[in-house]
């Protein structure tokens, strides 16, 4: 069962992501990306990382995709995108070679043996509980930093998308900038 699920998910994910990468249509790409994300959360559940799966679903499918969708609408790019894509040979050469390298690295048989957990999953706790335990002790600091990071991202998003960026003070002659302020 698990094996079947894994292979099913795997093939689907790979296929969907291939669509994301190859499709000319931005809508298709995004949809397949979202679907792939959902399936990845499935993998997480399969691996017993329930909390991660939920977070994946919420953050990616919820927030990220919503953001992208929002952005996409903003760009009004529902149709096919005209792209002057990189020639396929280059893409597949680089992609293929890096795939080989990565697979060699990650498929090394030495991985997996002789490793014992440094932060073992506590006995008898559900995954979210365990995660919570670690997150709010050991990983409290990264968590807080992540909060700062999100704040930074928020500010950044606001600033960058904000109206104030429409006019550039860096390009404007100082005199006109001053006068504009005076008018205000």
């Amino acid at each position, binding site marked *: 069962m698990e094996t079947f699920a894994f292979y099913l998910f795997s093939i689907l994910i790979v296929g969907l992501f291939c669509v994301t990468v190859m499709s000319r249509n931005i809508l298709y790409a995004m949809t397949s990306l979202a679907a792939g994300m959902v399936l990845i959360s499935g993998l997480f559940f399969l691996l017993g990382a329930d909390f991660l799966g939920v977070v994946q679903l919420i953050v990616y499918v919820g927030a990220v995709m919503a953001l992208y969708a929002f952005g996409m609408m903003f760009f009004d790019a529902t149709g096919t995108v005209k792209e002057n894509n*990189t020639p396929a040979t*280059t893409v597949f050469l*680089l*992609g293929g070679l*890096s795939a080989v*390298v990565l697979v060699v690295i990650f498929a090394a048989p030495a991985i997996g043996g002789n490793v014992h957990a440094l932060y073992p999953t506590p006995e008898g706790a559900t995954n979210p509980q365990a995660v919570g335990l670690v997150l709010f002790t050991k990983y409290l600091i990264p968590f807080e930093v992540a909060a700062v990071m999100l704040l930074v991202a928020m500010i950044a998003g606001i600033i960058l998308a904000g109206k104030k960026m429409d006019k550039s003070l860096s390009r404007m002659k100082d005199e006109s900038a001053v006068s504009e302020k005076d008018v205000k």
Partner: protein
Amino acid sequence: MESLVYTALFAPLVGSLFAALFGMKPKSLWTGTVTSLLLFVSFVASVLLLQHVMEVGPVHVTLMDWIVAGDMRIPFGFNVDQVTAVMMAVVTLVSTVVHVYSNGYMEHDKGFNRFFSYLSAFVFSMLVLVMSDNFLGLFIGWEGVGVCSWLLIGFWYHKEDVTRDVNPSISPSWAANEAFIMNRIADLGMLVGIFLIYWNVGSLQYDEVFAAVPQMSHTLLVAIGIFLFIGAMGKSAQFPLHTWLADAMEGPTPVSALIHAATMVTAGVYLVIRAHPLYSSIPEVGYFIALLGTFVAIFAASMALVNRDLKRIIAYSTLSQLGYMFAAAGLGAYWVALFHLAAHAFFKALLFLGAGNVMHAMHDELDIFKMGGLKKVMRWTYIYMGVASLALCGIWPLAGFYSKDTILEVAFNEHTYGIWFVLWLTAGLTAFYSFRLVFLTFWSDERYKKYGFHPHEVQKYVLWAMAPLGILAVVFGWWKEEFMEFVTQLLPAYEVSEHTHHMVPILIVVTSAIAIGGIVVAYVLYHKRLRRNPKIEASLPYRVLSNQYYIPILYEKAISKPYAELADIAWKEIDMQVVDATVDGIAKLVEESGDETRKMQTGNLSDYLKWMAAGAIILAVLAIVAVVKS
């Protein structure tokens, strides 16, 4: 005695500096007078020293240290022994005469003061050369006379370069440079000789060096002998470094008299005489010297046969006589060489000064074919030159007879009959060309009139000044015995063998015969008028001789020109095209690779992303290589 040594030595220097003070000013009589007086002072001091040496013995003084480095310690030391004393007397005497003479000769020259400055500086250098008690001191004088010679040959520096056809010396400045550079070539040999001496003896003092001669290996002695002789060859203009001497005639005539006849050119002979302990122990080198001298004697004489230039003829004769001296010195008869040196100094200086008078009269015309019959207007000059020529030819009882005949005796005595024969033959040639000159100048038809010259005799005091030389040219030989006794206190006494002794009268007769024969031929040919035979003049031997065996042209074609071309190639082809171009090429290569590399910076984000992936792959390859290698 010390003060006498210094007086003799430094009086000319003081004179020179005094004259130099006025060097750029217009002529002032003072400079000539003062320098001449100071020279006279030097002469007197030299004579007193000579007397002192005769009566008491050599004088040795050390002024101060000059170079002190490592174990090398070279003082300004001066040694007045028999040889030096003779040299000093000769040099100062001739110099004094020439100084006085120059007062008249240079009367109208713009560079009057400058001339005296140079001339006195020369005398100083020459005195340093002969008085020094070590080889490096000698070298100071050696180079010093070279420089003064350069200055004086090029005295009329403003003359333009002309082609060899117009003037074989091209120009005074050219001749000056040639003389200097040729001398430098020889000086290198001398320097190497000095180095050899220093590193094997540890000193350059004559006494120490000569004391060490017996301990040195033969090869080493030969090497030292050869290298020192190379030095001598340059100064004394021996073949193949002889061309500068004839060209040096571009200098004012008193200079030729003093430097290029009487003093500087004999420096080489002096060196060989001075280094006699060395040369006596290497007879094979001596023999070579003698051979070379003999060759130069006839070689130079042959060129004099056909030359038309008054001064050049005398110059070649100088060269020829230097050959005689080397022949004597090379055969071990050092005192004879010295004797001939002194005698030659007197009559050759006289000859040159006389030639100067003629030039003066002829407005610097030098072609003897354009002269003739001058004895009427230039009586005293004619007498002086006649006497000097007779002395040169070795006619009894003049100075040349004694000295030259002795050399022939020596050659005979050494059983080097070849040398003897050639020298004997040369004596005949000498007589011929000397009197060819005398007859063409003073006798024969008055061709100068055709060219519009108005010759006249020079000032009285000039003629008076020449008198001592004239007298000495006559009487110097009479002191042969005394001279020999005096100098052989230092130099090895050369005794002819019993057998030769018997032959001497015959030799004298034979030699005198050929000399007189030469005079007679000249008389027959030229006493009435100039005879020219176009056929002979067009013949190959004649052309070879008149072109100095084409040696100057050969030097130019084989050495100067290729050197200039090579230098040009070295600069333009090698230095610029190879060496510098390599440097610039590297710089350019770096810059061009910069231009190439920056192309990866396309500005397109997609390319950057690709590079990043490629970088990862390259790193992986690198890692694989490193793993495989380790």
